[in-house]
């Protein structure tokens, strides 16, 4: 037993010295300036959200003329909730009016002439008539991607052996051409990398559901080497990238996206550095 205790204490002291060598810092200052600032920033963000949301929440809903349609099939079933599993509690017969309130997740909240509120699938509106006597002109997923010019994307991937995460926002100028700005963060065993870039994407067959594209981009990378003992200087380098990918129009306003990129980093050394990246993610069109 005493033997065992010795080993444990030895182990502890070894651990302590390891820690002291590696990371231990004696608390020097209580109020580090950057900590204070990041806290202030976070609080400001919270307050900003509340300030933006509060008037909106307090405001009375604007009185817009109601969107009304007339049932043009034998009947339309009204569900209690926005989903196929919610029970049908009401049926609206042919020629009866329906007031469209709002849409959420492919379901539309409606009000019947008798004041009942319920949900019908978006597709059910194809079996109604609007004031002109035709079915409402609702877009299918194919038209949708050209009506929406903006998109935001989130992508995860592998950047030179590190896990990367990207957020992007883009604008479609023509059916083929899209310009996008992307921020990537890649954290690996050796370094943390931050990349900010601007790229141009060209879709060759934009009307295909599975649509291939090429891209060219340029940006700036901040490389922060990861080390425990010595903290080396961060490096900032410009880069150019070329890549190709596939977009798959999965549903209305929603695109799956996968791409390969090849980077050239213009380093201060004699040779430029080449890196590769794979990405997989999605875009939401709006």
């Amino acid at each position, binding site marked *: 037993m005493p033997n065992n205790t010795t080993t444990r204490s030895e182990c502890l002291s070894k651990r302590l010295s390891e820690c002291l060598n590696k990371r231990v810092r004696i608390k020097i200052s209580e109020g580090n300036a950057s900590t204070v600032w990041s806290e202030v920033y976070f609080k400001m963000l*919270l307050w900003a959200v509340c300030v933006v949301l509060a008037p909106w929440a307090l405001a009375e809903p604007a009185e817009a*003329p109601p969107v009304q349609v007339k049932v043009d099939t034998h009947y339309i079933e009204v569900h209690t909730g926005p*989903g*196929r599993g919610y029970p049908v509690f009401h049926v609206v017969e042919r020629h*009866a009016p329906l007031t469209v309130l709002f849409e*959420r997740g492919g379901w539309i909240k409606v009000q019947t002439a008798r004041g009942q*509120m319920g949900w019908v699938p978006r597709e059910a509106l194809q079996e109604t008539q609007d004031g002109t006597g035709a079915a*409402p002109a609702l877009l299918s997923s194919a038209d949708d991607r050209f009506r929406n010019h903006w998109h935001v994307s989130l992508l995860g991937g592998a950047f030179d052996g590190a896990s990367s995460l990207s957020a992007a926002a883009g604008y479609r100028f023509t059916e083929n051409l899209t310009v996008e700005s992307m921020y990537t963060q890649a*954290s690996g065993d050796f370094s943390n990398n931050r990349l900010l870039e601007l790229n141009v994407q060209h879709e060759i067959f934009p009307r295909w559901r599975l649509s291939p594209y090429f891209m060219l981009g340029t940006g700036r990378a901040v490389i922060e080497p990861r080390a425990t003992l010595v903290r080396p200087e961060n490096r900032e380098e410009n880069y150019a990238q070329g890549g190709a990918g596939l977009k798959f129009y999965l549903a209305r306003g929603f695109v799956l996206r996968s791409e390969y990129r090849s980077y050239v980093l213009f380093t201060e050394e004699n040779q430029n550095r080449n890196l590769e990246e794979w990405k997989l993610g999605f875009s939401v069109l709006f």
Partner: protein
Amino acid sequence: METRLFCIVLSLLFPLLANGETSQEKDATVRDSRPESVLDPRIERRRITDAEIDTENFEAGIYTGLISIEDFGTQPVLGLRLNYHLSEDVFFEAMLGRAKADETSFETLNAGVQLLTDEEREFTYYQAAVGYNLLPGEAFLTRNRAFNNSLYVLGGAGMTDFAGDEHFTLSLGIGYRLLINDFTAIRVDMKDHLFNLDVLGDDKLTHNLELSAGVSLFF
């Protein structure tokens, strides 16, 4: 800080509940309308397109709860979230959360030893996730009052800024959303943030469990 946020949440909530009641008053007026209008509807003569239908696919909210930062104690967490509801089944979520790590037991036992500086103890995560409404349904409060609700699962990835480094983080979770009216949801989430941390010598996979509750608004 937390109490103050609860106040904000509640102050946001009350007007919304009040709004819900005014909409019920409107129901009453529609019910009073002449019955013949049901079979001879006079619909305004105009073309209806997508632009005229109000979409309410976004959900934004704040949440607070507890996060157990492995080796660094359990601490309050505060966060913001934004969701996009693609269909009745699938939604996307972006989150930003903040907590502050406590001392490890090692530091508590050895007074004066600090593994991390104050700044390094700031635990900030931001991530994106995909959610799937696994069990949507209705919850009955009384005989005539039902709320739509859903049990969902979440899976995502992001970054966690902790101990002076950024760590690639996977997150897995399960949650419950109760809609108290068409535009307000109460949510409870249980999540696990997984990432590698090398503060204690070796690189080890840490599980950081988070239990949170929050309020969100649809718009």
